[in-house]
């Protein structure tokens, strides 16, 4: 499938005579019962086989817009004014029941989190059956047959078994496919995907998006993609709608809006994206001594419930972190990155293999012991919200390591150390007495970093340091980490599945898959000439990858997506 296909001239969504749009929204206003308005008049059209992207920062109204269209607004929220025409028929002023019916027969919805959008209590078949058109639903035989078809259609093999499974027995990707199957079960006019892939890791994200595109082609669907990931929008949609505080600030063909943004808000959104064509950080040239080293690290976990079966999270992994180096560990979800990180900082123990820190072997049996040996290695958590005790003040949090394992001299001047650290992470000293809940995500992550620096470590291990943050914030945190590394000549080991992050921060890369290292090299090598097929697949999977690699002015929208051909192989690969 092609972002802008030959037979559809660009931007047909905007000025297009002839064909009736699947959906025509004009002056749509949505508000709360108490009168506060959330959407202030949204207009757009959606034609068959055409895809519309809705972008905007969090809270801008993307979900509201989507849900208003399908009449699934949350309780207390109502569409107050405007017009919604479905296949030419006005549905806005209809009574709730008929409106819902109409919308449901014309739209399929795919929600953000597949893990929770299915009823854990019912088998896939029981739930899929509910989504079928009434006349089919009545007969079990026909329902069953149709369900099989649907599952096979969305690329789920062994459909019969899947039908008998409960949601928790399927992977996220499979569940999302099931949700999609439900969405198309009543052969709708259009599909609406709200952050349909945000919860999935890159490779799975790609597969699902490919699936949606394929269905759109085959079934002539109109498509609305809601996402805050501009990359996705860039790859997958023809038109784009930029929302800000419930207003449309820009609306037009992708190439035009993203290529030559008129509104500075749009520009801001674009600038926030870490770019894949930025400068690679200079690496420390000749490699001096190794600071942290794992040899043949192996870790197994019991598969929940089934005591006999074990999953190998790590399979004799060798890693060595040199002084001043910034080493990245990449790999799809479940490849063992976090496990590795936790072992390297001593939070977890390998079943086999040994760990050496600054030349000394780490032998402690208990976490506490190991930590005493590894005090120079600190850790930065993925989710700053959970990493801070809500009951403590910022200064208490930062001071804790000092109190626990600082030298007497350090303890004596705890207070000013804390304030200095706040300066280091660019937080105003006044924050010292705030509590975590009074901080934004980015600020919290800074506190986490400050705490990690409190004992003046030589190595920082960071697991997904920015993945839980808003895009706009991400870059700033990354900058901070980069500068800190320079200021205090730290060595980094950064875990991420976001290659853009890696490229911005790291000198070297280790690629992991299924607990094994499949490739290692400098960032430059990995990005320009990846040797391992899997590495290449990871690179391809990055949404909007090509778009941002090319220079902004070129109408890169046209250029074919390199991974199209490779797209959508082995749906079972999750």
């Amino acid at each position: 499938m092609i972002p802008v296909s030959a037979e559809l001239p660009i931007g047909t969504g905007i000025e297009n005579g002839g064909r009736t749009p699947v959906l025509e929204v004009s002056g749509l206003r949505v508000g709360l019962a108490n009168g506060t308005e959330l959407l202030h008049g949204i207009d757009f059209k959606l034609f068959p086989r055409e895809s519309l992207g809705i972008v905007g920062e969090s809270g801008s109204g993307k979900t509201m817009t989507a849900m208003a269209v399908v009449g699934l607004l949350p309780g207390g929220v109502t569409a107050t004014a405007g017009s919604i025409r479905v296949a030419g028929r006005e549905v806005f002023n209809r009574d709730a029941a008929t409106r819902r019916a109409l919308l449901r027969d014309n739209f399929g919805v795919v929600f953000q989190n597949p893990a929770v959008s299915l009823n854990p209590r019912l088998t896939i078949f029981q739930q899929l059956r509910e989504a079928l058109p009434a006349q089919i639903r009545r007969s079990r035989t026909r329902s069953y047959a149709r369900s099989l078809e649907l599952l096979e259609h969305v690329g789920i093999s062994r459909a019969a078994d899947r039908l008998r499974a409960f949601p928790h027995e399927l992977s996220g990707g499979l569940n999302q496919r099931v949700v999609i199957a439900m969405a198309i079960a009543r052969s709708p006019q259009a599909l609406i995907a709200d952050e349909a892939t945000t919860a999935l890791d890159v490779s799975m994200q790609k597969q699902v998006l490919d699936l949606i595109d394929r269905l759109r082609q085959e079934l002539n669907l109109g498509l609305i993609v809601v996402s805050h990931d501009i990359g996705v929008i860039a790859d997958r949609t023809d038109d784009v709608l930029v929302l800000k505080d419930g207003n449309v600030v820009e609306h037009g063909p992708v190439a035009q809006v993203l290529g030559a943004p008129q509104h500075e808000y749009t520009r801001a959104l674009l600038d926030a994206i870490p770019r894949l064509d930025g400068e690679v950080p200079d690496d420390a040239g000749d490699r001096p001594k190794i600071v942290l080293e794992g040899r043949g690290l192996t870790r197994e976990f019991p598969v929940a419930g089934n005591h006999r079966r074990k999953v190998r999270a790590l399979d004799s992994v060798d890693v060595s972190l040199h002084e001043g180096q910034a080493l990245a560990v990449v790999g799809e979800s479940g490849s063992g990155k976090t496990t590795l990180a936790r072992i390297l900082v001593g939070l977890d123990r390998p079943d086999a293999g040994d760990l050496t820190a600054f030349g000394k072997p780490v032998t402690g049996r208990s976490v506490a012991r190991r930590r005493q040996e590894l005090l120079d290695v600190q850790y930065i958590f993925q989710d700053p919200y959970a990493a801070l005790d809500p009951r403590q003040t910022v200064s208490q949090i930062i001071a804790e390591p000092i109190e626990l394992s600082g030298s007497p001299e350090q303890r004596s001047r705890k207070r000013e150390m804390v304030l200095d650290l706040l300066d280091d992470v660019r937080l105003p000293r006044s924050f010292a007495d705030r509590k975590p809940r009074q901080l934004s995500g980015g600020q919290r992550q800074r506190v986490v970093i400050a705490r990690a620096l409190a004992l003046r470590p030589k190595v920082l291990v960071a697991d997904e340091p920015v993945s839980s943050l808003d895009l706009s914030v991400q870059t700033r945190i990354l900058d901070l980490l980069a500068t800190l590394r320079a200021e205090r000549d730290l060595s980094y080991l950064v875990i991420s599945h976001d290659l853009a992050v890696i490229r911005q921060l790291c000198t070297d890369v280790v690629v992991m898959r299924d607990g094994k290292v499949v490739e290692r090299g400098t960032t430059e090598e990995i990005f320009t000439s990846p040797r391992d097929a899997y590495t290449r697949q990871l690179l391809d999977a990055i949404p909007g990858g090509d778009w941002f690699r090319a220079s902004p002015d070129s109408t890169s929208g046209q250029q074919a997506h390199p991974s199209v051909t490779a797209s959508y192989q082995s749906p079972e690969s999750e």
Partner: protein
Amino acid sequence: MADTAPASRFAAYRIRPPISRRYLISRLVNAALTVWGVITIVFFAMHLTGNPAALLVAANATPQQLAAITRQMGFNQPPVEQYFVFVGQVVRGHFPLSIVYDVQPLQIVFQRLPATLVLGGTGLAGGIVLGLSAGFIAAVGRFPKVRWIPVSLLTAFEGIPSFFLGVVLIALFAITLPLLPLSGDQPPVAIILPALVITLALAAPIARVFRTSLLETRSADHVRLAESKGISPTQVLFRHVVVNSLGPVVNVLGVQAGVVFGGEVVTETVFSWPGVGQLTVTALGNRDYPLVIAAVTVLAIGFVLVNLLVDVVAAALDPRGGHR
């Protein structure tokens, strides 16, 4: 395709049990362990008093009787053997003869068991019905202004100790306006008052948990999805909200089972309901410890079984647990 779907296939999906055999077994083992624990506790309780044999015979027992019991329960052997003898005896249902009745205690306990089960069952059923309806109203009732009232009323009743509630109910309904009979000798009407006591002790917690759980489930994502499917709102409400919310309720029942059993002890005494609870209390009054031990063991086993059931049902309501 339609016709190629062999019947066996969805026979297969339909009888798909929401709980695995492994899970069931683990629960059973658990239950057995608990019962064993209870027996052990009883054993120690008896030895706390110095000479356990003396407990198991009448106050004016002859030395011969004492010797006999000592032999039967192996009290003359070293502690460890004693323990195993005791457990063995209990497991085989061989308790020392009841002092008052002079027969196998289990025999008497089982005579009384039906009465207890009937009372407990009725009370439980009442509590569930009352609690669920109140909780449902509180969560999704039509009139937000007043829908909290039923739960609050139940909660107020919950604060009344069952013995006092019993006393008051008797004073009101059996005496002042004699609508309902007093005690356990005029079935079936006689069950109303005692059952009511148990019901009222149960309803409130059930109602609260059900309410909370309903509110949580209602805003769950899978409900939104269900709404987008085009099935009727009532179907969504029951298939996806109500039934999904029952898990916590069932778990509460597990804990409240204790309340029921304990409540029975008091309630049966207040209403002179001829069940195991009353039997145990009078047996204690009569210093008939063999009978006490038997009754307690039976009650404990009953409780364990109830919780076994609860676990299974809870798992059935959330397969994620059941396939663990």
